[in-house]
């Protein structure tokens, strides 16, 4: 699945890849969707994720893919037919910023595996190696319509490590959940966190300028490492020694690994984009970009996405200049804007968070309709993750990652009634047998039952 990168990923970089820096196959995806019988969803209102709202339209899922959208589609043999008049259908929600599994529930000390706070550069760590697949929070996110999510390491470090994109399916191993072919992400962090963590220890960085020196130094080393391997590939000689930290950074320089940069302030985003130019790489997305609206034109110009909250603010100084119109302003400036959660609660309500951001945009005077706002929780996060060629919208041939909502998903009363991943019904609100329970939930609170007596998803 090479070449998925688009708007946000800067796919126009020439193929310079000779050495395998991404090591995509070291912990390969073993995810395999269960066999899916065809599903015909009849008569729903579709928000396609491509800018359309289609009334009373049928959607056919076949062989795990979206097979057709249209009027009066014929049900294939053995198809499950769902009468969905009055209901709404969207692509599966994609959360570009999650720590599920790395910061699982219950949050006890021994399970806090999301932040390798031992050095300002820990690009060598991979979030997937911390994921507790039995985190009961995955199933709650599924009940909220989330079909894909990126698990990122935390933000204590300038370079936090690699993130991983998962399908929100139960897995015994994290490989069972890995999104096939999804490129890796590198988590970077601007601002207060790294300087607080390391400044407190009396080491670099203790300031924002220290942060920037740390990034640049690392990119110098990574560039040299990449060149060394390229020389070896081209000219032969002695094989260079592998370095896990530099491999990840070199993967970014080669355009295989996407940069996901925790960065709140407009000033810092501008500097990070300059660093990217200095070392010739692309930033995929600024996360927690509370001040993205201040530099929305620069984001558009540099083809950098911004992942934002609807209304969080004030928990730290760099989150003080919040406006609820943030996503809308970024969007209207033609940059790629999206909602994200960074929260086990927020991830369950990304439709509501998107709704709030949409209304803030309307109140700002922008003409923004649900058919467009839905892209903030589907297609744009797919772009950010480099998987938009295969998911994120209801288009023929894409993965059948689909949510059937009880009503308009931008209503507080709407619920994800059914959630399909690759055409397989992974969650059904009305059918306890299609509601997953992690190992943790069995026999807890009630030795003979599950965590909650009535199905667990209430």
């Amino acid at each position, binding site marked *: 699945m090479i070449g998925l990168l688009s708007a946000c990923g800067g796919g126009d970089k020439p193929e310079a890849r000779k050495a395998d820096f991404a090591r995509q196959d070291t912990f390969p995806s073993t995810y395999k969707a269960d066999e899916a019988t065809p599903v015909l969803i009849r008569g729903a209102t579709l928000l396609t994720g491509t800018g359309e709202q289609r009334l009373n339209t049928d959607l056919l899922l076949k062989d795990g893919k979206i097979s057709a959208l249209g009027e009066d589609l014929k049900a294939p043999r053995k198809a499950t037919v769902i009468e969905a008049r009055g209901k709404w259908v969207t692509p599966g929600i994609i959360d570009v910023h999650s720590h599920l599994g790395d910061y699982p529930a219950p949050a006890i000390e021994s399970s806090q595996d999301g932040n390798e706070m031992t050095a300002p550069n820990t690009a060598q760590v991979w979030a997937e190696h911390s994921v507790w697949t039995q985190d*009961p929070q995955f199933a709650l996110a599924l009940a909220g319509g989330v079909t894909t999510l990126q698990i990122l390491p935390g933000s204590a470090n300038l370079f936090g490590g690699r993130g991983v994109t998962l399908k929100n399916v139960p897995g015994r191993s994290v490989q069972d959940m890995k999104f096939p072919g999804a490129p890796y992400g590198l988590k970077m962090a601007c601002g207060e966190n790294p300087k607080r963590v390391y400044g407190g220890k009396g080491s670099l960085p203790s300031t924002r300028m220290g942060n920037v020196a740390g990034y640049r130094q690392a990119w110098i080393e990574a560039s040299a490492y990449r060149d060394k391997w390229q020389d070896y590939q081209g000219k032969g000689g002695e094989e260079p020694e592998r370095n896990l930290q530099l491999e990840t950074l070199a993967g970014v320089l080669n355009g295989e690994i996407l940069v996901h940069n925790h960065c709140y302030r407009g000033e810092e985003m501008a500097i990070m984009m300059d660093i990217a130019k200095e070392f010739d790489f692309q930033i995929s997305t600024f996360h927690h970009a509370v001040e993205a609206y201040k530099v929305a*034109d620069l984001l558009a110009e540099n083809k950098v996405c911004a992942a934002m909250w609807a209304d969080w603010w004030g*928990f730290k100084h760099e989150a003080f200049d919040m406006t609820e119109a943030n996503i809308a302003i970024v969007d209207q400036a033609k940059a790629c804007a999206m909602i994200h959660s960074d929260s086990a609660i927020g991830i369950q309500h990304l439709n509501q968070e998107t709704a709030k951001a949409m209304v803030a945009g309307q*109140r700002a005077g922008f003409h923004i309709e649900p058919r467009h706002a839905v892209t903030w929780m589907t297609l744009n996060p797919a772009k950010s993750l480099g998987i938009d060629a295969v998911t994120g919208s209801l288009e023929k041939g894409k993965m059948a990652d689909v949510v059937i909502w009880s009503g308009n998903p*931008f209503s507080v009363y*709407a619920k994800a009634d059914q959630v399909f991943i690759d055409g397989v019904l992974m969650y059904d609100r009305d059918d306890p047998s299609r509601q997953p329970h992690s190992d943790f939930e069995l026999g807890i609170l009630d030795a003979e039952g599950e965590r909650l007596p009535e199905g667990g998803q209430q």
Partner: protein
Amino acid sequence: MNKNTRFKFYGVLLAALVAGAAPQLFADTLLIKGAKIITLDEQGTLTVGDMLVRDGRIEQIAENLDAVTADLVIDGKGKVVTPGIIAPSSELGLTEIGAAASTNDSAISDAPLGAGFDPAVAFNPQSTLIPFNRAGGLTRAVVLPGSEEKIFAGQGFAIKLTGGYDSVTQTGLVQKVYFGESGAQLAGGSRALAYAQIEQALSQAGEYAANRAAVRRGDWRELDYSLEDLDALQPALSGEQPLLIAADRSSDILQLLALAKKFNLKLIILGAAEGWMVADALADAQVPVVIDALGNTPSAFEALGARMDNAALLHKAGVTVAISGPGYAGSHNSYLSRQGAGNAVAYGLPYEDGIKAITANVAEIFGLEGGTLAAGNLAELVVWSGDPLEVTSYAEMLLIDGQPQSLVNRSTRLRDRYLHPKAGTGHAYER
């Protein structure tokens, strides 16, 4: 349509502000016409109704007040009027930026005071959190101390969100105490110790009350708490002041019910993630709860039973439920209690009870003004663009103490400055 009403109203407001006019001059009479009015009082809900406000008080609510003229008439068609939202648990005016210690006054460390700590004098009516939450529909709030060292955090107070120096309406409102996991950690490692400390403090407060002169003379045995703390516990001990005790686990809640019975306390449970499991006991004891209705993850071993229909189940059993803003949002977004209430309704709480949980019930539990709309009441209300529990609705007009309030805040100011961001120095001249 919405926009016109809003801007018209801002126009009135701005003109008055520029002129330096006192708020009383806005309008002696205000008439809201043709709105859905949810009174939460005897009149119930008027699908289409009018409301007349005179000199800051509600004078009349009726289906039709066509004969009445007013200084300011608001077209309420398609809009919904409710009492103002009241936050049952916040640090409004005590915190500005969470991670900036110098801007936080809610918790103390290394000080002798526990129960006696009263943060009301630290309250800042000009906090940026106040206009932002007010724009979200919040008119009043309970402000609570936190604690980093002691299970007795201190006393809560009540505010109105006018931003005026007279914002604090009641002090000594509640005594806040930690039980459960956090209480256990603060007490020294076990819930049993936290429980013993609460019992001991209350017993010694009683002992002190009965022997006050001797204790003060030094003719009494050494007590474990300062006289300030023991004094501060008297209203709780006499049942005048509620103890707001944090607990989530069902067994913890039952222990607190026993404690309340033993000392004849007025108890409010804060948290109650597993409240639904002991809802009947809470109802029997007539103990209300303050919950985060979005908190459905088993985030701690004491909250394994957390679920979305906690509010619905508690209500069904007869418990008075107040809903706070979501835990992740903190006081900066206290008004998001309405999103919590909307979700609680989606998961089975009857609609009007959802609105009560963020208005009338909060007023009732803490003994505050507001919470209902009725003739004679202070006009404390919000005119919403639509269903107040929908995340797509917003406050178009808001009255506190009968006076219209500004809905402008840093979020709207920044929005207007950067609506179309571009290079250059121009932004700095946009006001």
